[in-house]
């Protein structure tokens, strides 16, 4: 049975895990009411940096595997 490579699942856990942690922080500790916090964890990290990390590992590791044969 074909199955997406391990790195695919690592990326999903990274991104969904990050989102869940942020939502838990909002629900339990009110992170969203800390001045400028949402601009950092939801905008800068959540909308840009974390997805960008995913996009890097999703081409880096498959290419590395190809190079190693």
């Amino acid at each position, binding site marked *: *049975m*074909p*199955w*997406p*490579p391990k*790195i*695919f699942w690592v*990326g*999903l856990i990274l*991104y969904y895990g990050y*989102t869940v942690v942020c*939502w838990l922080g*909002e*629900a*339990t500790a*009110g992170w*969203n*009411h800390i*001045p*400028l916090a*949402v*601009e950092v964890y*939801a*905008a*800068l990290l*959540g*909308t*840009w*940096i*974390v*997805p*960008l990390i*995913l*996009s*890097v590992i*999703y*081409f880096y590791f*498959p*290419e590395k*595997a*190809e190079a190693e044969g």
Partner: protein
Amino acid sequence: MADPIVVGITVLYFLAIIAIGWYSRARMKSATDYYVAGRQIGSVVNGLALESTYLSPASMLGLPAYIFILGYPFWWAMSAIIAGMPVATLLTAAAMRKYGPTSFADYYADRYNDQNLRWLVGVIVIFGAILYITLSIVGMGIFLLAILRFPYLYGVILGAIIVMLYVVFGGMIATSWNAAFQAVLMTIAAVIAAIGMINYFGGLGEFHAAVLANNPKFFNTPADPEPNHILAGTWLGVVGWYFTWHYGFATMPYTVVRFFTVMDMKTARRSIFWCTLFAGFFYLGLEIIGAGAKVMIEKAHPLVVSGAVKANALAVLKYYATNFGVGTPLDYSMVAAVEALQNPWILGILAAGGLAIAMSTAAGWVMVVNVIVTRDWADMMLRSKFAKENPVLMARIISVIFLAIGMVIAINPPGLVLDLSGWAFVVIIAAIGPSLVLGLWWKGATRTATWITAIIMFVLHLYAWLYAKLTLGHHSFFFLGPALGLPKTAIITPHQVWAIPVGFLLFIVISLLTKKPDPEVVEKYCVQLTEKV
């Protein structure tokens, strides 16, 4: 009255895309060039083209409008849209490039060994295409209004004509190179407008404080006693918004076909990095603009400052509906916020970027429809001699017909641009997403499941969305809520997003119950395609 600087920047934009289109047209020698750019597009250009095709006026106008309505929790929907880009890399993009078809419907016809699937997939895709072409022309109308200060109706007509000329004389090479240019332009436009807004308040801290002072509930989540809006007032609603567009990049035809245009699988994977880089930056700008739109309009919009309209953002937007005929005035909130900066350079770049995003999206969807109608239906299914001998001419005729349909609907659109986008996303992902994704990753996916899931989910979702919108008052209210004895607002499910998991579940159940596919076909279009993605 039109500002000469704004008009001048727009003219420069058009000169640039005409030059790029002219250059690329000279290189177009065959129908393959027209459909999939001769499979010669590199990762940076394809990544940028992916960005500008995927991110439509639903992004540029619609996302800030929804932040304006729902508040901060909607930022997470935007996060999920961007994160959906890399998710597509390994889920569908690399395998689809390895497969290397010409049309979106090819995969379904080959994997499930049934040429008639071209009809079914085509109908569903064309439904989504009409919604997207419509919202793109709405975007053209709104940005042309911002530039030329003439009625929205004129903008819709002129916008449709501009896109017709653009698509008819270019094909996918023109749209790939122009779309890349347009991606850079729209990203710069959104970021400059966001910086202008932050500077207006004196810094990011001051901006945050101004948004909060204007609307104390803006940053509230469902955990707070008073959410900003009922549609983001429950975690179910927030999660629903999060997933509405999330898997679209992996399954929507207008992005999937862009994976066909690149040189190889490595380029397909890398192009998504460039797409995520620019699109994420673009969305940062839009999040700031959406958050600041209300306070910006109420403090500094020329209509407010001059006293023509009271300091109320909705009153300003209503002014545009009344005086310029904008069918969905909330879609104008982003432009109105930038108008409030009273800087013609920023407005000019934004308007050019807005035209860019509208044109590239319309062009991308028209190309998808072209390939389905001209190649799949007329040539392959109906064996039309005319389509076989004149593929490019026929594709151009089809382009004009669909753009004309979009233009007519855009005059009085059935919803906000983001409503049209969400509707198209969920119906396509729920109906034909399972057979695409599971067809690649599960040997047990069957032809019968593809037919049944596509037909049931297409009809059911259409009914649910329209019932919720027309009878319950909003597409986000669960269509069965009242039948279950619940208040209509009890279950918030944006765009009836429940349809996506239900579609996948239905597909799996029917596949398990129906005749197994031919092992040779499965080996070729499932196992081999997903090896070493």
